[in-house]
């Protein structure tokens, strides 16, 4: 049924910035302190207080605009968005309306079949956040709501996309890309659950082939990529069913409940909003010249797309490996720290995506908190490269390193893990293995060459993993090829 319809999605993302102070006053933005302890006349909206713009907020906005291919407005204004709500002490939110700081950008996302699709960004503007509301749920507090204004006036960037997405997968691809960029830029910590990256989705459907857009519903309150996908899918079904039953979609805001997987209409929104925007007389126009923009452009950190190209082209990594490593900035930084010390990028990548990730996952740690630093990991890789230890022993060394925090060389020394490269010693074990397994020897010589793995395995086992596997392999093949003196 829903195949008859095409879905159209536009996204609005609120990106909470990582500045030390609020957008218009010097109060701290630290999270989780005593309610209302980080407030002052400006963010409390007391009469006569004068907001003054945080310069870092402007620079973060310019950075984000440049990273999303936007035009940076030479002149922009702040405006008052008027409405009443207890979490908004002034009775208006300072935002940008007619002249936002960034416009007409785009991001390329990967869609089905590995193709690129360009998603337009209508605008990015700066604004202040509202406070936080708690609703009483104990008998004595049930008639009340409680207001904490610590978050009021926290700087936000609102990134508004064009209605260019045609599936929930495209919406998620766009969101993940934007999420990755703001984290790489360092303008946002990217924490969805704590609300540092909030997404509203405008969803409508139309019969395939129809040009005009259908009526849209706005989905709010979604705090994970998975839930955003669920909410969009639910909304497509809901609208398709409505239309099939001869009904009409009404323009409304809907709240998605991740526990039930269902969204419901927010009441009291029938009265259409009229925000009566007007330029805020307290804030003077913002003028940004080319010199400023270029200064910021030269200081932009390397973005994921460029890292991807460098990893595949310069380091020769596979596309998949490169995309795994760049997915998180901290992982990419870890990888680059390793490569700076050890030039075999492939083995660095393998270890980070293999042993290290597995261990981090098992312990619920992020790479920033890894007890094994890039220097320590490279310590292992160097000993593998110079044949001091084998790949298998390296894993053992890694385990010990993870537990004890010791350097590779110390672990190898203390546990006597040094690889046996003395050909005499290896030969002895090889001979013993051949002598002990006459049946397999006969099979091998009769053409079952796969058995080489069996023999090498036995030798490695008897040497407790310390024999050099390459040498064992070579020697074993040689000996199996010609019957030894004294052998039957």
């Amino acid at each position, binding site marked *: 049924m829903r195949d008859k319809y095409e879905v159209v999605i536009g996204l609005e993302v609120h990106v909470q910035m990582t500045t030390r102070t609020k957008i218009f006053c*010097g109060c701290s933005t630290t999270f989780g302190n005593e*309610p209302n302890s980080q407030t002052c006349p400006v963010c409390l909206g007391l009469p006569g207080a004068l907001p003054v713009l945080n310069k*870092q907020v402007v620079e973060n906005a310019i950075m984000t605009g440049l990273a999303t291919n936007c035009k940076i407005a030479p002149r922009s204004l702040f405006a008052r968005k008027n409405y009443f709500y207890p979490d908004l002490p002034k009775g208006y939110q300072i935002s940008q309306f007619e002249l936002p700081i960034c416009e007409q950008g785009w991001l390329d996302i990967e869609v089905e079949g590995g193709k690129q699709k360009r998603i337009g960004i209508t605008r990015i503007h700066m604004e202040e956040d509202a406070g936080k509301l*708690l609703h009483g749920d104990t008998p004595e507090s049930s008639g009340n709501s*409680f207001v904490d204004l610590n978050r009021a006036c926290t700087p936000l960037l609102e990134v508004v996309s064009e209605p260019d997405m045609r599936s929930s997968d495209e919406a998620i691809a766009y969101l993940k890309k934007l999420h990755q960029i703001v984290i790489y830029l360092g303008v946002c910590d990217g924490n969805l659950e704590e609300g540092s990256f909030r997404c509203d989705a405008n969803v409508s459907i139309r019969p395939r082939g129809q040009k005009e857009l259908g009526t849209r519903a706005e989905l709010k309150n979604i705090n994970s990529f998975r839930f955003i996908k669920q909410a969009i899918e639910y909304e497509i079904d809901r609208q398709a069913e409505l239309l099939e039953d001869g009904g009409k979609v009404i323009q409304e805001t809907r709240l998605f409940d991740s526990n039930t997987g269902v969204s419901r209409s927010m009441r009291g929104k029938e009265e259409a909003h009229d925000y009566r925007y007007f330029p805020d007389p307290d804030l003077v126009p913002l003028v940004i010249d080319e010199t400023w923009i270029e200064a910021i452009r030269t200081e932009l950190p390397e973005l994921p797309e460029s890292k991807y190209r460098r990893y595949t082209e310069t380091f020769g990594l596979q596309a998949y490996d490169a995309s795994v490593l760049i997915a998180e900035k901290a992982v990419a930084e870890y990888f680059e720290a390793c490569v700076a010390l050890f030039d075999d990028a492939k083995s660095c990548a393998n270890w980070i995506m293999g042993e290290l990730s597995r261990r981090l996952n098992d312990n619920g740690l992020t790479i920033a908190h890894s007890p094994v630093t890039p220097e320590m990991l490279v310590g292992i890789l160097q000993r593998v490269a110079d044949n001091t230890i084998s790949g298998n022993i390296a894993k053992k060394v890694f385990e010990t390193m993870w537990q004890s925090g010791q350097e590779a060389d110390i672990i190898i020394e203390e546990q006597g893990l040094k690889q046996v490269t003395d050909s005499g010693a290896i030969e002895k074990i090889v001979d013993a293995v051949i002598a002990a397994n006459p049946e397999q020897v006969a099979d091998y010589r009769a053409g079952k060459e796969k058995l080489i793995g069996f023999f090498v395995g036995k030798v490695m086992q008897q040497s407790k993993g310390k024999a050099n596997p390459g040498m064992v392999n070579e020697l074993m093949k040689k000996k199996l090829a010609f019957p030894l003196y004294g052998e039957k």
Partner: protein
Amino acid sequence: MKITRHEVERVAVLARLALTDKELDAMTGQMNQLLDYVDTLNRLDTDGIVPTAHAVPVENAFRDDVVRPSIGSERALMNAPAAADNYFRVPKIIE
């Protein structure tokens, strides 16, 4: 009539103003007078003039991202009609 009584009523609602019938009539008259005056201004030739949001020729007033002391919750709540546990207390706003 530039603005109807009904529109004035709506603006009053948006601004959370409770106006009596008499006040509504008076406001409607006054607002129409104001808007008539805008008509007078509209007769000026403003071609080629950039819309002016601010009368003072100042731009780019910034502060650095440096933390300044806040006033603290006690002083923040000093004039609040109701407070509890360092929160402002208001009538419940969702059912």
